[in-house]
C-alpha cells in the first residue's frame, strides 16, 4: 500500500509517520527544502490545554514526535500572560531532528517538489501532478498543504508578502489539491468580515537584543516590557490567527519567548517603533524578514471533512492540520495529522475509519471545530487547546487535566491506549 502525503509541516510529518507505523509505504512531498513549515518559527508546546492533548496522544501511542520535541526543548514549564506550564522548543534545531527521524523510519521524502494538480475520476484520486508534469500515484492521499499564503492571498487579505519562512517566491506557492479535485475550499473570516487571519507572532534575532534581555530570556524563557502608549493598537488583535494570544496583555506588553530566536507575540511591529524600547536599539527581524510591516495570511484553504479526517466528496483524500480546519498550533496539527495518517491506511484496507472519542480533548476538538465552522460566526473562531473559546470548553467539560497518570488511566479505560502503535498491515 502506498500513502502519498502532500505537505511536510507538523501535520504532514505526523500523518506520514503514523501511516508508516501502520505498515504502509509512505512518500512525503514537500514544496520547500525543509520540513515543519511554520513549525520552524513556532515553538510553543504544552501551554494550557495543549498539555492534556499532548499526553492524550502519547497515551494513544503517538509519542514519537513529542519525544523529539522534548529533546529539543529549551525551556520547560514556564508561564506567561494567560498561559501556564508551556514548553518552548528550539526552532533552530527541531527540523533537522524531525527530518532524521522520518528518514530513519523509512519514509521517502521528496523536497523542493511542488504538487499542482490531481487526476481525479469519480471522486477517486488516481494521481497527483507535480509542476514539471510528472505524476505520483498512491492508493490513498493525505493533504496537509496548510492554509497559509500564498503571496497573492497575503496581498489581497493582508499587508503584502512579508517574506516568511514559507518562502513562496523561491519554491512557488502552495496549491489546494482538494479544490483542484473539485471540492470547494472553506474560507475563514475575521470579525470585520474580511477573509483570512494574520499570523500572530514574529521572530527577532536574539543577538540583536541587549545583553540584559538575552540573559533574562536564557534564564527564564520569557521577557516582558511595556508597549509605549502611542504604540498600543488593540485592533491588531482582531486580525490575529492565534486568539489564545489575542489578550489585552498582548497589546499592552511586548512579550518575548525564547525559542532559539526571540519570539515576539504580535503579528508585526514597525521596526522604528520597536527600536525605541530599552534594549531593542539594534533589533532586527528574522522571521518574517519584513516583520516590521506585515505577516502571513492564513485559513483561506480548508477542505470540508468528516471526523475521521476524510474529505467530504472524495473517496481517498484525507486532511490534517490547518487544511482540515480552523486549528491553531503544532499540537493541533500533530493530532489531526496522526488521525489522518491512521485512517488513510484503514480506509485502503477496507476497515472502518475511526473517530477519536469526545471524552478526550483530542477527539472533542475535531468534532467541535467541524460543527463550529458550519456557520458564519464559527468561521471567525479559531480552535486550540491553548486558549480562547475551546480552552474554556475544555475546562467546563472537565477535559483539562494536568495529571499525566490520570490521563493515562482515562485513555486506558476507553481501551484505546496504544492504538497508534498497532501495525495494521
Amino acid at each position, binding site marked *: 500500500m502506498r500513502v502519498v502525503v502532500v505537505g511536510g509541516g507538523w501535520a504532514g510529518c505526523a500523518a506520514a509517520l503514523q501511516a508508516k507505523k501502520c505498515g504502509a509505504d509512505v512518500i512525503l512531498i514537500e514544496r520547500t527544502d525543509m520540513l515543519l513549515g511554520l513549525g520552524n518559527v513556532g515553538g510553543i508546546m504544552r501551554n494550557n490545554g495543549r498539555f492534556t492533548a499532548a499526553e492524550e496522544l502519547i497515551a494513544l501511542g503517538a509519542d514519537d514526535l513529542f519525544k523529539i520535541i522534548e529533546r529539543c526543548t529549551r525551556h520547560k514549564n514556564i508561564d506567561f500572560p494567560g498561559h501556564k506550564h508551556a514548553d518552548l522548543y528550539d526552532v533552530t534545531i527541531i527540523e533537522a531532528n524531525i527530518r532524521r527521524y522520518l528518514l530513519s523510519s523509512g519514509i521517502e521524502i521528496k523536497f523542493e517538489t511542488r504538487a499542482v494538480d490531481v487526476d481525479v475520476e469519480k471522486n477517486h484520486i488516481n494521481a497527483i501532478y507535480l*509542476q514539471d*508534469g510528472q505524476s505520483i500515484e498512491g492508493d490513498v492521499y493525505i493533504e496537509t498543504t496548510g492554509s497559509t499564503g500564498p503571496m497573492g492571498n497575503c496581498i489581497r487579505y493582508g499587508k503584502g*508578502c512579508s517574506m516568511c519562512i514559507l518562502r513562496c517566491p523561491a519554491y512557488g*506557492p502552495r496549491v489546494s489539491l482538494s479544490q483542484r479535485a473539485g471540492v470547494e475550499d472553506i474560507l475563514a473570516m475575521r470579525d470585520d468580515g474580511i477573509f483570512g487571519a494574520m499570523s500572530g507572532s514574529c521572530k527577532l534575532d536574539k543577538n540583536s537584543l541587549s545583553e540584559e534581555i538575552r540573559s533574562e530570556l536564557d534564564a527564564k524563557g520569557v521577557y516582558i516590557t511595556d508597549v509605549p502608549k502611542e504604540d498600543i493598537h488593540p485592533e491588531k488583535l482582531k486580525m490575529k490567527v492565534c486568539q489564545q494570544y489575542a489578550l489585552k496583555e498582548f497589546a499592552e506588553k511586548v512579550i518575548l519567548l525564547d525559542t532559539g530566536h526571540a519570539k515576539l507575540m504580535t503579528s508585526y511591529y514597525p521596526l522604528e517603533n520597536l527600536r525605541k524600547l530599552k534594549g531593542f536599539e539594534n533589533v532586527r527581524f528574522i522571521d518574517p524578514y519584513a516583520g516590521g510591516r506585515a505577516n502571513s495570511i492564513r485559513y483561506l484553504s480548508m477542505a470540508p471533512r468528516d471526523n475521521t479526517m476524510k474529505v467530504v466528496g472524495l473517496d481517498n483524500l484525507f486532511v490534517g492540520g490547518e487544511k482540515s480546519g480552523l486549528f491553531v498550533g503544532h499540537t493541533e496539527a500533530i493530532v489531526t495529522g496522526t488521525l489522518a495518517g491512521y485512517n488513510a491506511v484503514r480506509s485502503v484496507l477496507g476497515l472502518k475509519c475511526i473517530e477519536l472519542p469526545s471524552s478526550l480533548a483530542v477527539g472533542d476538538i475535531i468534532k467541535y471545530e467541524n460543527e463550529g465552522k458550519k456557520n458564519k460566526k464559527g468561521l471567525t473562531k479559531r480552535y486550540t487547546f491553548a486558549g480562547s473559546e475551546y480552552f474554556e470548553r475544555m475546562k467546563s467539560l472537565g477535559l483539562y487535566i494536568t495529571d499525566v497518570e490520570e490521563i493515562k488511566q482515562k485513555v486506558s479505560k476507553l481501551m484505546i491506549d496504544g492504538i497508534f502503535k498497532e501495525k495494521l498491515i
Partner: protein
Amino acid sequence: MYRFVECIDAGSDFCPCHLAEKGECIICSQLQNKIFCDCLYWKGTCIYQELINNGNKAKKNREYKKYNIVSVKKIRDDLYLFEVKVTNYLVRELDNFGAFVFIKKPQNPDYFGTPISIMDVDYEKSTITMLIKVHGVKTKDIAECSENIMIKGPYWNGIQGQRFLRNLKNTNVLILGRGVAASPGVLATRRLKLYDNNIFALLDKGRSQENACTSYYKKYGANVENLNIVNYKTNYLTDDFIDKIDKILSSNKIPVILVAGDDDFNRLLINYIYKLNNKIYFASVNNHIMCCGEGVCGSCQIKLSEKYIRSCKQQYNPIEYYLMEDGNK
C-alpha cells in the same frame, strides 16, 4: 493527462500584460476575477503583486524598432537568409528556446508584421539570423528589404512543450525537421549543447538536396542526416525513415523529441512515435497564425480540452494538441 498551464511571458519584462490588467491573466487566479490564489505554474514572481506595484497597469508593450540588415542571402527563389544587427539586449533575450520576432518592411503599417523564428544569434557581432520563406504579401515585402528592417520583440513561444527541453543535461535529444520550420531547432541545439546534450537531427530533404538549416545544425555539433521523412504521395512516413527512427530509438535513450515541421508533419511523427514509445516527451514548433503576439487579437486561438487558449503566449503539451486532435489518444 496532465494539462499544464504556462504563460511564456510570465515573470518577464513584459509581465503583467494587458491580459492581467483586464482580469484575463493566463496564470494568476487573483487576476481572473477569483478571490484566492491557485497558482499552477510559478516562474518566480507573483503577477498579482507585480500588477499592484505597477499601479494596476500593464507593463509597456514591445514596439517596432528599425535595425540594419548585415546580409541577405538568397538560398532559393522563395528562401532567404537574413542577418540583422540588433541591440545586445535583443541578442541576449532572443537566445532562448522558441525565440521569435515580428518583422516588417519599414514603410509598411504594423499589420504587415509577420512572426519569424530566430535560427541563430551572434553575441560578438550582435546579430540575429533568420530563415524566411516567401509565402505571400508580407514576406514578399520583407524579401525586398536590403538595408533596414523593422523588428518587434523578443517573443518566446515559438516552441511548445519547452518545459521538456529546459534543464536537460548530458542526455540525447532528437530533432525531426522539415522546411523552414526546422530553423528554431538550430537555436534549440545551441542551447542544448551548452549542457552537453547529444543532438540527433533528421531533416527532410523536401524539394532540395538538403534542408537549408543543415550547416547551422552542424555548426553546433548536431549529428545531422538529410533524408526523405514523408512520402507526400502516400502522405505517410518513408520506409527509410521508419528504419532510421527505429534504430535511433532502440539504441539510444531519448527522453525528448522536438518535431519541427508543419502541422501535418508534426502530427504524423508524434502519432507514429507515441505508438512506439509513449514515455517520450514531445516539443513542437508553434505553427499557429499570429498577428499581435500579445494574446489580444485572438488570431492564434486554439481549442484544447474544451478550453480556448492563446497559443502566442500560452504553452501546451504537444501530445495533447496533436494526439487528441487526431482522435488517436
